[in-house]
């Protein structure tokens, strides 16, 4: 199966990387998961173009992305509304479209959210490294030569012909996320919540917090009320594994929501964002407000099941005709 040159990067914007659903199974060797910070948007983009939903796409940040189309191809743009344009016209998001050779795809600027995802029908012709096409930015492997995309990079796609059928697919409006500037993230306590007094736990839930400009793919840094450990406890804990969504509290009392680039850490973790809310972490941007709401494990599982069931229903609606 020959790969075809499909996209030439004219401008990557501040950060455009190749990401799939993440690199699993290598945490034991100190290898972080990486992957799309908003996995929901990437999965939907893949379903829309007829790809397996774990396929890699482009994760584009805030603004400034531009690329030229080198051959007819089906694409979908999902995630934050960064105002995608096809040539000089606004392009619809959350649906698959056939682009033609010579077209230009660009992002004109942020309307809401933080990251947009571009899936290419047929999938990116890149080799997997440790089971994934995601870019590990810190150690520089995976993705496109282990680095963010640059002007002049040419992306290649495999299996174009079959995917050309998957055009005109639209996400059900019931599944369409809406992104604001103020977020409520549902959390489960722990693992080290007992190192914080119940008064401090209340403060944590009252917030509100604001996202600082130092936030990036490694973590969402929050300012707001200080979250202080119980007096007498040491500054750090014995290092251990962490997961995306873990909220760690360094000695300065300013919480950080860990994303997929970290595998171990030595700070206390007061709470953890539930899996169903992880996609929001990819769309929270500096300046946004964040508020935490405690839920039970049963509730966390229930909302995750609800989300996955709806996504499965959406996926199945194409299975018969595809």
């Amino acid at each position, binding site marked *: 199966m020959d790969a075809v040159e499909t996209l030439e990067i004219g401008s990557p914007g501040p950060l455009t990387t190749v990401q799939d659903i993440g690199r*699993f*199974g*290598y*945490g*034991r*060797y*100190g*290898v*972080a998961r990486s992957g799309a910070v908003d996995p929901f948007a990437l999965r939907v983009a893949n379903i829309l173009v007829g790809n397996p939903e774990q396929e890699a796409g482009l994760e584009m940040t805030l603004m400034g992305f531009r690329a030229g189309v080198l051959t007819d191809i089906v694409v979908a743009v999902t995630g934050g509304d960064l105002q995608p344009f096809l040539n000089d016209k606004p392009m619809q998001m959350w649906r698959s479209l056939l682009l033609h050779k010579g077209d230009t795809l660009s992002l004109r600027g942020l309307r809401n959210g933080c990251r947009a995802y571009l899936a290419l029908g047929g999938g990116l012709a890149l080799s997997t*490294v*440790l089971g994934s096409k995601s870019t*590990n930015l*810190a*150690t520089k*492997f995976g993705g496109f030569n282990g680095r963010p995309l640059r002007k002049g990079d040419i992306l290649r796609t495999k299996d174009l012909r079959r995917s050309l059928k998957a055009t005109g697919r639209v996400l059900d409006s019931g599944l369409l996320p809406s992104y604001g500037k103020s977020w409520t993230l549902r959390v489960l306590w722990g693992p080290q919540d007992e190192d914080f007094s119940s008064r401090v736990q209340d403060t944590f839930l009252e917030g509100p917090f604001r996202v600082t400009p130092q936030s990036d793919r490694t973590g969402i840094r929050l300012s707001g009320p200080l979250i202080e450990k119980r007096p007498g406890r040491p500054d750090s804990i*014995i*290092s*251990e*594994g*962490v*997961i995306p969504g873990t909220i760690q509290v360094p000695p300065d009392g300013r919480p950080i929501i860990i994303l997929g680039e970290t*595998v*171990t850490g030595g700070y206390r973790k007061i709470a953890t964002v539930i*899996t169903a809310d992880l996609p929001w972490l990819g769309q929270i941007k500096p300046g946004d407000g964040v508020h935490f709401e405690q839920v039970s*494990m049963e509730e*966390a*599982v229930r909302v*995750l*099941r609800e989300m*996955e069931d709806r996504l499965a229903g959406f996926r199945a609606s194409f299975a018969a005709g595809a």
Partner: protein
Amino acid sequence: MELGDEISPSVNRCVRALFFELDHRVIQGIQELVPSYRSLLVIYNSLVISSSRLREEIRVAYRELKHTPAPRFRTVRVPVAYGGVYGPDLEWVAAYQGISPEDVISYHTGETYQVYMLGFTPGYPYMGDLPEAIVTPRRETPRTSVPRGSVAIAQNQTGIYPVESPGGWHVIGRTPLKLFDLKKNPPALLEMGALVEFYAISEEEMARWMP
């Protein structure tokens, strides 16, 4: 899963034993296991296995531990060119401890270390415990870049930087061995629980070793 509240070889062996046992059982719904000093992170899909069911599975595995000993510890000998350009902090550590650089080397090579966990960067082994005589607090100012292969110490731990990265430990030498290699499976030279012995090589041997 927490198996203790301290950094010690015995607690870490419990973590390792449970890690191997759960890994071996291939329980549906477990996505990933990340062992560390005193705890084992079990990442699972709550739609495949419930937390109560998973807890029960872990309890069963834990009870079985005494019947199924974990795999033997593998010993890896690691060559190190100490001091000079490869170990810029060796002199400082010696002065801090009031001993000679040769003493630091002989203390460092005189012990067998246990790999407590991998983390920080891919393949980075946290190893202990250092002999009391060279236990040294971490650098006041971390370096923004530490070369690949650097052998370093901090508190009662020793580590090796598998890839170039920032770092706050005292660099006392460098090994020509590749700690993290994407072409290998597993990609890390050392795994949790491996035993490590360092031995000194000259700068010339180090230079010859390099490709």
